[in-house]
């Protein structure tokens, strides 16, 4: 019983690191632009496919992680600049922007479906024998993925707190108009945000498929609801919040899977969000009356 709980928590941490990387990327983008970007999952999948193609041509999975991240950066920037920005320029409101990203998600996902012939591709890399840590049995890859989540989190926090661009990013996210009048070039900040969140998005895609060992056109889209739930729960623009919520969701889903029916584990993950909404509506109420503006 106790062993099961401890193991479930450990597995939850592994799952959380995958959610957290994606969720941190999502939340900084969301924090800055105010826009729920539903095409994020499509970019995740596309980056994962880039890594898959590289690895299947004999490149190491570690380079795959980096290249996948860069691919995510590039795609996010292009989509943000040339697809989403024109809508914002036309004065699209927040929920209209969300609808646009939903349409974009359809185009991306089914484009990937067409290119991938609707097939699932095996991605069995980095297999290794398990480590026994007391009652917990875990694989080195899982430990590495959990570590990677931590590294990304610390790196991102340092970037946001210590560098000029990080500070500019936080300032723009909080008060875009004020930031602009203080001489911050918000246009440049937006570009940096696209690149940074895109990198995390791509990285998360590759981490996901290393963990699940396969990739298909809907990989990212299936995962997106958990990512968004963690980002909403953690508060827009807060990597720390995203990590804490990812941990909460990861552990809850695994504990439910271990003690109840695993079929309900994702349901439990979402239920966390709904419960938080009920208990603390302020968490997501944001600036409701005067609707927040899209910053692009």
């Amino acid at each position: 019983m106790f062993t099961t709980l401890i193991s479930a928590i450990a597995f939850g941490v592994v799952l959380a690191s995958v959610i957290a990387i994606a969720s941190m990327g999502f939340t900084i983008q969301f924090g800055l632009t105010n826009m729920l970007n539903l095409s994020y999952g499509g970019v995740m999948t596309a980056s994962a496919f880039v890594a898959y193609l590289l690895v299947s041509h004999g490149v190491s999975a570690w380079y795959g992680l980096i290249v996948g991240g860069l691919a995510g950066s590039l795609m996010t920037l292009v989509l943000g600049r040339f697809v989403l920005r024109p809508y914002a320029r036309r004065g699209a409101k927040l929920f209209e922007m969300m609808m646009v990203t939903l349409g974009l998600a359809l185009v991306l996902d089914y484009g990937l479906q067409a290119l991938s012939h609707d097939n699932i591709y095996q991605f069995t890399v980095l297999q290794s024998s398990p480590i026994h840590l007391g009652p917990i049995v875990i694989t080195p890859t899982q430990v590495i993925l959990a570590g990677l989540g931590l590294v990304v989190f610390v790196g991102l926090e340092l970037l946001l707190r210590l560098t000029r661009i990080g500070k500019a990013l936080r300032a723009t996210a909080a008060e875009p108009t004020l930031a602009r009048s203080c001489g911050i070039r918000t246009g440049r900040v937006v570009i940096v945000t696209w690149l940074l969140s895109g990198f995390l998005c791509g990285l998360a895609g590759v981490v996901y498929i290393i963990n699940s060992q396969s990739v298909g056109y809907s990989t990212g889209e299936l995962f997106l609801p958990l990512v968004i739930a963690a980002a909403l729960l953690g508060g827009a623009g807060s990597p720390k919040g995203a990590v804490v919520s990812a941990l909460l969701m990861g552990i809850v889903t695994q504990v439910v899977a271990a003690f109840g029916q695993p079929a309900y584990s994702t349901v439990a993950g979402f239920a966390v969000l709904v419960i938080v909404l009920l208990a603390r509506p302020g968490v997501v109420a944001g600036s409701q009356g005067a609707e927040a503006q899209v910053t692009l």
Partner: protein
Amino acid sequence: MVGILLACAIHRGVVLRSIRYKSIAAAGALSIMAAACGSSATSGSSGSSGASSGSPLVVAGVIAITGSSSFEGSNQSGGIYPAIYSINHAGGVLGHQLVYKGVDTRGDPADALPAVQQMLATTKNLVLVAGPGTASAPTIVPVLNAAKIPMTAVAGESSYDFNTLPYFWRLFPPDSANGTGMALWAHQKGYTRVATIFGTDSGSQGDLPGVLASVKALHMDLVSQINVTPDQPSYLSSVQQLMASHPQVIMTESDGTTAGTFFGELKQLGGLQPIIGTEATFTAPWLTAVKGALGSSFEQYYTGMITEPSKTTAAVSTFQTALKATKTQVSPPWQSYLSNPFSLTYYDGIITVALAMVAANSTSPSVFDSYISKVANPGAGKTVVYTYAQGVAALKAGKQIQYFGATGTIDFNKYHNSDGNQEAVGSTSSLNPVPLGVVTAKAIEAVPVVGVA
């Protein structure tokens, strides 16, 4: 109702190393246009009248070609194309060539209905529907029966065990027979502690009750019953739960992706036990995924329970030759259908119906439908034939025939069901079955399974 879901599409496919477009059956497409579109001005109902001489006859595959059950369409393509090839190669049916028409149900009953009605409206000379599968059968079977189109279904639902519709034919044991075969095999091996891992998708859940009821009937101990949601990034906690229950054998069915992740994690955590998979696990996506995840341990642990394939008869070699000849038409990789039980069943269904047309000397379904069991069932004084060409020759010589198919003996009972023996098989690296032992239909019937209607 559009059943393809943006994200809920839990789809299984096959492993492909290269991403390349494949133009499928361009020639076939043209002839279908001739057969299908050209007919729209005339009466669409092909049910009652025979085809005019020389015009192609249409075999429609009503199945999930896209969506969460798209593997059904792949398996079917591996049976239909070879069957049509071998029939056309032997001179066609009564002077007609056969052509294939794919009708996508998307695995959604609401999508299947207009798709099938559109097919009925626009397809002239439709002689046979291969399918429908589990998800769309309840909606489609009555429609096809009313339109007097014979169908060779693979729907494993027990509700068809006592079917009375004249145009419904099932060459496939019900799901529960497969489950009973698995339990009997485990029993025979001396296992007493059983765990089940089943996906929550409709195909897998359809096969679960038969397994559970049979395990109970044989007084084995069900130590854990785990249902997993497909396409999760990780199943570690479920793996842990499984290991903690200390099973001696794991009975399973799920899609390939889920199985690959689950058993990969089970192996990594050192919890592998012998695995007995349902018939649906003996298909390329599942085998490839689990083989990829288990590596060299795979052959040691995996046993599949499938409908007993016919041993090296001319039926099998003819099928395999025809498959090789149509390897650019079927969904890749073509090798995965060489001994795929579903593909073999579809193949046999089409050959049987084609022979029935020859025997009835008619392409009108209302005439030849009753000949379907006559050309397949064993009987005294019948000439056993293994291929379409042999069958046509024997029929021309005025003989009664029994088509012994690639799946072995076909013997329709009065409910138009043909149940065969089950066989436990291992899998080679080329996805061929390695026979381990037969569980006879008699033994399966003898198990007092309750709770599965």
